């Protein structure tokens, strides 16, 4: 592996300054052009099944209960109870106090292959002391989470404390070690500029992220096409530089099959087909899954059914 920085704030600052800027008009234009790709028939049905496998089925509400978790676990294993040819989702994503019950439910329902992802480090704001963030992550790992979705300290990033952001990610990565995949949430809606998105993507990758993730889902805008495009360019370039393939997770605002397919087109044409699998691309979503199922039924039967033909959760 090529070491691009030594971890000091000085080296981070120097390195991130060498990154070329992102021209907003150009990035928006490229994303808009790719949104016109017309995905039909066989390629559409391939894309729908791929998107289902990429879904991190998510419930992140204050009102979450064990009952709610039971329901989404059942859905995660067999998204369509009438058609077992539908693949299971990529992961189930919950708050860390529900990790244990999620794991148990998945295991009991034939979903032992589905990882449990936990949001940690004082999700969604990241505003807590460092020991709290560490404990938050430890709890999730001890309860059986094999994917950790951490948030970065956006305040620190925006005020130029790059070393602090780097060290937090690095410490969480050390905790995860071989036990869990680390997804680093940039919360791009708070970073605002595409230059920041590119810099934060690199910062996270340099600190050891396995995935870079757009958003918490609690801030809008979230996974807009140009933001995902900038992040896909970052993982593509980082792979060329270091040989390490980092994944991307788009989360927030992806609700329809059309939205999901646009994301797959971005992956295909920006990062490349090597990223086009659940190991390297995920979509954080809840409502999306039902629309994917409805479109899948439409392709198979030739007509649309209604919302009562897919399960609530």
């Amino acid at each position, binding site marked *: 592996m090529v070491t691009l920085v030594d971890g000091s704030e000085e080296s981070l600052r120097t390195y991130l300054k060498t990154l070329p*800027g992102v021209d907003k008009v*150009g990035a928006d234009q490229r994303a808009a052009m790719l949104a*016109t790709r*017309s995905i*039909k028939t066989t*390629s559409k049905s*391939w894309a729908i099944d*791929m998107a289902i496998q990429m879904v991190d089925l998510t419930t992140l509400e204050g009102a979450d209960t064990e009952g709610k978790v039971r329901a989404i676990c059942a859905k995660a294993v067999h998204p369509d109870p009438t058609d077992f040819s539908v693949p299971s989702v990529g992961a189930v994503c919950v708050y860390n106090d529900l990790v244990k019950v999620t794991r148990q439910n998945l295991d009991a329902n034939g979903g032992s292959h589905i990882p449990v992802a936990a949001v940690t480090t004082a999700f969604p704001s990241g505003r807590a002391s460092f020991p709290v963030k560490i404990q938050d992550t430890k709890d999730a790992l001890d309860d059986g989470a094999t994917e950790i979705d951490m948030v970065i300290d956006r305040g620190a990033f925006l005020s130029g404390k790059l070393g602090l952001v780097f060290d937090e990610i690095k410490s969480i990565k050390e905790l995860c070690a071989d036990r869990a995949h680390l997804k680093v949430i940039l919360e791009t809606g708070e970073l605002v500029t595409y230059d920041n998105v590119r810099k934060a993507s690199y910062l996270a990758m340099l600190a050891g992220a396995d995935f870079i993730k757009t958003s918490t889902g609690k801030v809008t805008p979230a996974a807009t096409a140009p933001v995902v495009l900038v992040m896909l*360019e970052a993982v593509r370039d980082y792979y060329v530089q270091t040989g390490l393939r980092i994944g991307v997770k788009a989360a927030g605002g992806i609700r329809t099959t059309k939205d999901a397919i646009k994301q797959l087109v971005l992956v295909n044409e920006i990062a490349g087909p090597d990223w*086009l699998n659940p190991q390297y691309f995920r979509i954080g979503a809840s409502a999306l899954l039902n629309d994917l199922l409805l479109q899948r039924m439409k392709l198979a039967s030739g007509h649309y059914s209604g919302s009562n033909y897919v399960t609530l959760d």
Partner: protein
Amino acid sequence: MDKKPFEYAPAPESRALVSIKPQYGLFINGSWVEPLFKEKFATINPANEEVLSKISQAGKSDVDRAVKAARDAYTKTWSKMPAKERGKYLFRIARIMQERAREFAVLESLDNGKPIRESRDVDVPLAAAHFFYHAGWADKLDYAGLGNSPKPHGVVGQIIPWNFPVLMLAWKIAPALATGNTVVLKPAETTPLTALLFAEVCQQAELPAGVVNIITGDGVTGSTLVNHPGVDKIAFTGSTEVGKLIARSIAVTGKSATLELGGKAANIVFEDAAIDQAVEGIVNGIFFNQGHVCCAGSRLIIQENIHDEVLEKLKRRMALIRVGDPLDKNTDLGAINSAAQLAKIKELSTAGDAEGAFRWSPECELPKKGFWFAPTIFTGVTQSHRIAREEIFGPVLSILTFRTPQEAIEKANNTPYGLSAGIWSEKGSRILWASKELKAGVIWANTFNKFDPASPFGGYKESGWGREGGRHGLAAYLKGAK
């Protein structure tokens, strides 16, 4: 894990949207007439060489009739009509073009070979936008700063090229009508169909007879129109070669002219550019419309210290260009417009090989029938190579390098042309400096091939006379206006 590549299944736009007549007459004085000169020629689909229709070759007597109709319409109707009424007709035409946008787009792609994505998203919306823009000017000419009550020329002869048939028609007809002129327009012989569809739009808009006349034919018809004594002004877009012929033939006749001719634009990438967007701009600059663009960024001039990085990214991007059926919504690069143009592109590319430049194209399967050329770049090009000097008018990019900003400008300006240029840099002061030094009519910074009806377009040196679009474009259709 499923490693199957994400193939895009064919997604063709429906051809049933257009009805093409087996043959067409000429549109003179508001109705379709058979040419007095009986000859017809075929217009074909360059993607598969299928004959689409038979087109009339207008002869001298036909040009006479068209010019007379335009003169009568000018003296009896159009010049007497209040300006705001002229504006209403233009608004009506613009709206009808929007309503029939899909029809125009499909027909344009069939006849020209350009991808439906471009005809649908660029050519047709921009054509309608030109009519909307100029419709607004019709009753405000007194306040345009072009003199007190500026007057139209009268009858304008307009000759347009095959690269953007309906868009060039709009660039020509909209300002001419807004300023009170009447028109005889000749579309290119390989792409007459959207102009003939536009004739239907004129009928639908109930435009007074003779205000717009559309005659078809080859260069002979064009030359007859240029030399016709009843024509007061010529507006031409096409090759520099033909532009020079026109300039010679109208010398001392008192006719005025606007000429939009060739180009060999420099697209300059500085080391501090936003590289990914610059790569997109390079691709858009040369592969948009198969490179059949007079302002195409056909000379890429890269700062030497980022040459390899840009080249690697450019090659990876070029491998994604989807070449094929122009009617497929996912096609990025369509067919070359004609056998003659394909031969010219091949000839110049072969010259590039012979002169020692290095050719590269991504792997791509070209259709068997029709006229096709893979997206191509030449590296190691020098100023003295033909492919750095002559307009190729195809999907072929010549790549040169520079060491200092001064050298970039010198190389960019070292051409007989001066239509457009591109600058890629994140440094504002450098963009302002370079745009002042570059001798080109249109300069894009951190973008390329952007067009707007409000923005004047035209060139320096052998790229032409006059400007089209904006307030400057109006001046070209008004007597004595500056």
